[in-house]
């Protein structure tokens, strides 16, 4: 325990003096001091003056008020803890507590950002106040608004120097809030072509069927490497991105997937299993109904004999018959 410097102070009621002494005390005890300690230190000062001093220090942000199981603790805010807040505070010493509160809430949201309505809920401030504060903060370049891809009208606020999270910007498929359809299409076709050629070479090798089938499979890692080497993407693509593209090929009915158990450590295995993909043909040719004009007719429900639209005067049928 450090030696407490006992100073016999003259009974002066200078508030600045009191504050300075309290600060010194706090600096001596970085874990915090209780009210009792201050009282012991400066017994001649009345409780009221003490309270005023402490309040002033708190409002200036030089002290932190903490609660422990013994009572209230006052702790000095050191430069590491304070960080941007002290920087911020040094910028706007005179601003309201409200703004500080809002800033605190936004900081807590991290890099996901927070919506203005959520700020309102957390701070219980009226909407008009919130808007004013947000504008203020924005103009001071302390926070920024980022548009979310999910709802384009919704703006989330986060600290100025933070990178927005993937879920907000959409990741590799979005550039500036726009879904890049052509990029996805191009990747789609490239992956499919790769798998198709692999299946063809396997089929032509004419070895026994097991080997043929196994060699027509490609793991997601192989496809990922191929796409990276192709270099058609300016954005770095991860294996999960490639897997989402391969999934769309599955939903197109062009590719099928199996999962096999793989040893940990083999290239491309995730948690002990690997996903393998293979190009396949559809199991039936286009069905009979769609070869007749009625199968694709947009006015099918209105068509009946004797009406405006009927089989006898169907223009689609006439065109189809002339084909």
């Amino acid at each position, binding site marked *: 325990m450090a030696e407490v410097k006992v100073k016999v102070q003259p009974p002066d009621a200078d508030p600045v003096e009191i504050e300075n002494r309290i600060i010194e005390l706090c600096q001596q005890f970085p874990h915090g001091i209780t009210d009792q300690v201050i009282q012991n230190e400066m017994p001649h000062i009345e409780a009221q003056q003490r309270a005023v001093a402490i309040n002033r220090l708190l409002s200036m942000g030089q002290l932190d008020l903490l609660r422990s199981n013994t009572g209230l603790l006052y702790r000095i805010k050191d430069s590491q803890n304070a960080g941007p807040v002290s920087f911020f505070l040094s910028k706007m010493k005179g601003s309201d507590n409200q703004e500080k509160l809002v800033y605190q809430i936004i900081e807590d949201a991290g890099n996901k950002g927070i919506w203005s309505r959520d700020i309102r809920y957390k701070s219980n401030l009226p909407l008009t106040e919130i808007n004013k504060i947000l504008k203020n903060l924005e103009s001071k370049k302390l926070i920024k608004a980022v548009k979310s891809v*999910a709802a384009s009208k919704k703006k989330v606020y986060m600290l100025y120097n933070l990178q927005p999270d993937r879920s907000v910007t959409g990741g590799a*498929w979005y550039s500036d809030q726009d*879904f890049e*359809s052509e990029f*996805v299409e191009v990747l*789609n076709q490239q992956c499919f072509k790769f798998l198709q050629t692999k299946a063809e070479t396997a*089929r032509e090798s004419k070895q*026994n*069927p*097991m080997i043929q*089938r196994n060699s027509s499979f490609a793991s997601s890692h192989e496809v990922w490497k191929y796409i990276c080497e192709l270099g058609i993407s300016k954005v770095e693509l991860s294996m999960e991105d490639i897997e*989402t*593209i391969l*999934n*769309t090929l*599955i*939903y*197109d*009915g062009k590719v*099928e997937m*199996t999962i096999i158990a793989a040893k940990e450590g083999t290239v491309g295995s995730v948690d002990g299993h690997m996903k393998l993909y293979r190009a*396949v*043909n*559809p*199991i*039936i*040719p*286009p*069905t*009979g*109904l*769609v*070869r*007749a004009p*009625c*199968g*694709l007719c947009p006015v*099918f429900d209105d*068509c009946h*004999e004797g009406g405006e639209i*009927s*089989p*006898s005067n*169907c223009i689609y*049928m006439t065109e189809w*018959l002339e084909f």
Partner: protein
Amino acid sequence: MTQAEIKLCSLLLQEHFGEIVEKIGVHLIRTGSQPLRVIAHDTGTSLDQVKKALCVLIQHNLVIYQVHKRGVVEYEAQCSRVLRMLRYPRYIYTAKTLYSDTGELIVEELLLNGKMTMSAVVKKVADRLTETMEDGKTMDYAEVSNTFVRLADTHFVQRCPLVPATENSDSGPPPPAPTLVISEKDMYLVPKLSLIGKGKRRRSSEEDATGEPKAKRPKHTADNKEPIPDDGIYWQADLDRFHQHFRDQAIVSAVANRMDQTSSEIVRTMLRMSEITTSSSAPFTQPLSSNEIFRSLPVGYNISKQVLDQYLTLLADDPLEFVGKSGDSGGGMYVINLHKALGSLATATLESVVQERFGSRCARIFRLVLQKKHLEQKQVEDFAMIPAKEAKDMLYKMLSENFISLQEIPKTPDHAPSRTFYLYTVNILSAARMLLHRCYKSIANLIERRQFETKENKRLLEKSQRVEAIIASMQATGAEEAQLQEIEEMITAPERQQLETLKRNVNKLDASEIQVDETIFLLESYIESTMKRQ
């Protein structure tokens, strides 16, 4: 019976049997089973005509009768059987591929006449075949009989139920309508007939320059006076067996598309082996051991046992799940999962329709919802990698056409829309039913269009028929070239062109009917198989 089905039945009956039969048939389909007098009264036709029409319908297995209490006989039409008339060309073609021309003609005769005795069939078919053969050659009855026996052995034709021979036939007044019975083992039993003879050519009058025809005609009638040995044993085509064959064909071609030729041959062998042993509505075939399969492979395929085993393992592991492994005895027991196969084929049909109607991106969304069962709007966009606006548009379009349905899951008891989950899902059974209904209406449309086209050009058709008749008669009486030319020119070139177009259109419409019928077959088989399992 839906409106579309009734319309289609009415068109088919009219085309095959005429107005009166159509009226009676449609009335019966609409109103269910009715006694004779009620039918006559409701349709306003005379009793005599109703009787004749019912005879025709019963002969063709389109109407069945039942004796109810108090001795009233009621007649009931079978709508599904009427719709099978669309499939007659496919049945005949199948018989042709399996048993060549003889088989084709036998099945054709049976289908056109409803029920026939074996001797009558054999005679007729032999006559028809002799027509087409070269001069001097005739078709032997024995050959036709052999084909008939083979058809019966593979269950493509079956005996019709008979009146049971009652010992106490005079114990009381005979029942108003006989109850027909047939035992299982008798169904394919061919009676021992010794049909000796050859097919007779139907000589046209031009060739009988001599007194030959007169000599032949008395002989003809003399033949008819001989008692027919198998009187009372009537045969009909077994449509269920044909359906089984079509189903097998569809499965084999699906396997061939997904894997390779050899796998499809193996599956075909397996199906052939279970043709007789498995009933047509079973969800799985009987388990077959790999050794049996190896022995039953067609002779041309000399693959080693090891390779066969590999193929079987591959088939069993395939995500399609058509073939499953049910045990390890005998080198591995394998079954074919019929219900799953039909389900996959029906799903593929649905996907193909969605793809052709709405585009491949819609097809992607459709398959996605099929695989994942239930999805939210946002999830659909994420998985399918389609921009939100377009995805929404496509989902709503499919929703309005009833391919996709919504499932609501409320978060609060008051079902407020803002606090409910809306999940998209595909109900395959109801989508299949909806598509089936559309198929029926499409075929009705195609038939109507065909009739319309024919009616439009009726005058021209009649003219061309007259000209042909004149030319034929003139050729018979030995006219000169110049006269023939003159007659032929009665049909001008544009008219000839029109006739050509008409023929082409009618053929196209006909072919298209058969194609839509293929879709109907797949969907109906799936619905039937699903309903049986419930």
